[in-house]
C-alpha cells in the first residue's frame, strides 16, 4: 500500500482515502479491455429511417387472420395453464401465427403487461435456429411503412426462443406484432422475412 503522505509531503485525509482506493484498484481497471463492436441496434423510432417496401401477400394475410382467432384462444389457455412468467400485473396473451416461409410448425405466444411501462414477452417455437449470423426481431407494426423495432433475440437449436423487454413506445398506436428473421448485417430495416404475426 502506498503511503498517501508521499503525495504531498503532508497528511491529507481525502487524498489519502482516494490513494487507498487507487492502490487497491485491480490492475485491469487501469487499462480496460477493448470491447467488441456493438451489434446492430433496433431501428430508431423515426419515420425518416430506412424502410423497405414490403411485399403484401393477401393470401397469406387472410390465412393468418383465420388462424389467429382459433390459435389465440388455444394458446392463451395453454399459456395460462403452464403458469409461465406469471406476473402480478394484468396482461393479455395471444398466439402468434406463422406467415411467409416460416416452418410449418412455427408458432408462438405474445404477452403484453398492463404496467406503466408495459413489458412484452414473446415465446416462439418451431422456427429456424439463428446460429450466430442471424437473429429474430420483434416489431410493432401498422404497415410495411409504419413500424418500430422492439428488440432482437436468438433461437436455440430446438427452434425455441424468447424475447422479454419493455415496450419502447405504447403498443396502442399499432395494430400488429411482427416477428422477423434478420441477418446480422447491421442493417436496421426490416428484412421482409416475417415468420410470425398477430393482431394486438
Amino acid at each position, binding site marked *: 500500500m502506498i503511503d498517501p503522505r508521499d*503525495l504531498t509531503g503532508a497528511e491529507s485525509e481525502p487524498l489519502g482515502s482516494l490513494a487507498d482506493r487507487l492502490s487497491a484498484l485491480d490492475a485491469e*481497471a487501469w487499462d480496460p479491455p477493448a*470491447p467488441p463492436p*456493438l451489434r446492430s441496434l433496433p431501428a430508431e*423510432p423515426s419515420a425518416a429511417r430506412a424502410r423497405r417496401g414490403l411485399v403484401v401477400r393477401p393470401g397469406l394475410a387472410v390465412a393468418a387472420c383465420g388462424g389467429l382467432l382459433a390459435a389465440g384462444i388455444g394458446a392463451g389457455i395453454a399459456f395460462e395453464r403452464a403458469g409461465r412468467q406469471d406476473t402480478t400485473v394484468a396482461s393479455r396473451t395471444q398466439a402468434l401465427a406463422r406467415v411467409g416461409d416460416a416452418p410449418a410448425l412455427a408458432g408462438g405466444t405474445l404477452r403484453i403487461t398492463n404496467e406503466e411501462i408495459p413489458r412484452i414477452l414473446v415465446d416462439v417455437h418451431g422456427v429456424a435456429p439463428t446460429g450466430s449470423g442471424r437473429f429474430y426481431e420483434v416489431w410493432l407494426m401498422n404497415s410495411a411503412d409504419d413500424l418500430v423495432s422492439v428488440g432482437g433475440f436468438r433461437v436455440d437449436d430446438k427452434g425455441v426462443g424468447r424475447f422479454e423487454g419493455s415496450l419502447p413506445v405504447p403498443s396502442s398506436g399499432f395494430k400488429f406484432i*411482427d416477428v422477423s428473421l434478420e441477418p446480422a448485417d447491421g442493417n436496421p430495416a426490416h428484412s421482409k422475412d416475417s415468420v410470425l404475426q398477430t393482431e394486438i
Partner: protein
Amino acid sequence: MPPVNAPSIPQSRARTSRFERAPVIGRRVGREDRQLVRSLQRQEQSATRELYERYGGVTLGMLTKMLHDRTAAEDVLQEVYLDVWRRGASFDPARGSLLNWILAIARNRAIDVLRKRSPEPVDPQGPAFATRADPVSDIDILLGEWRLAALLKRLRPEESQLLAMRFRDGLSQREIAEKTGIALGTVKLRMVQAMDRLRELIEREEVHA
C-alpha cells in the same frame, strides 16, 4: 410479409412527431453531456454508440470480473447497451449520471446471469464455505472500483499515466521523475492536480450514486 389488412398511415402519424419531447435536463449534467442525453432520450442510435465508445471497455471489464467469463461478459455487454438504447427515453439525469445508470444496468444484468447459473458444489467442511462472501456484495465492490476506472479515463492522458505509475506500478515520485525526466517538484504538483481533478469527478458522480 403481410401486415393483415394494414391500412395506409396518414403522414400526420409519422413516428417523428410521437417521439419529440422536451428533454429533462438536470442541473448536474455537464454541458458536453446535454446533447448526448437529448439524443439518448430520443433513442437515437448515435447516442448509444457514443456511450458504448465511452464506457464499453469499462463495462466489459467490470462484467468480466463479475462473471469470470469473458465470452459471457461480451454477450451481457451487448444486452446492456441494448437496454441503454431501449430505456434511454426514460433516462432522467436528475436521478443519476449516465455512468452510474449504465453500470447499474450492467450490475443487474450480471446478477441475473449469476442467479441463473447452477451453483457450484461446496464442501461444507472446507475453508471456502466459512469464508464464502455475498456475491451481490462483491459485485457492488467491483462496481465501485470500475466506476473509478471510468473516471480515470476522463482525466487527461498525462494525468492518468502519472497516477498509474504511482498507484498501479508502485513507483515513488522520485522514481517517476527519473523515469519521465520531469522535475520532482513538477511531478508532485501534477500528482496533486490529478488527484484533485479525480476527486472532483468522484464527488460529482457519487452525488448521483
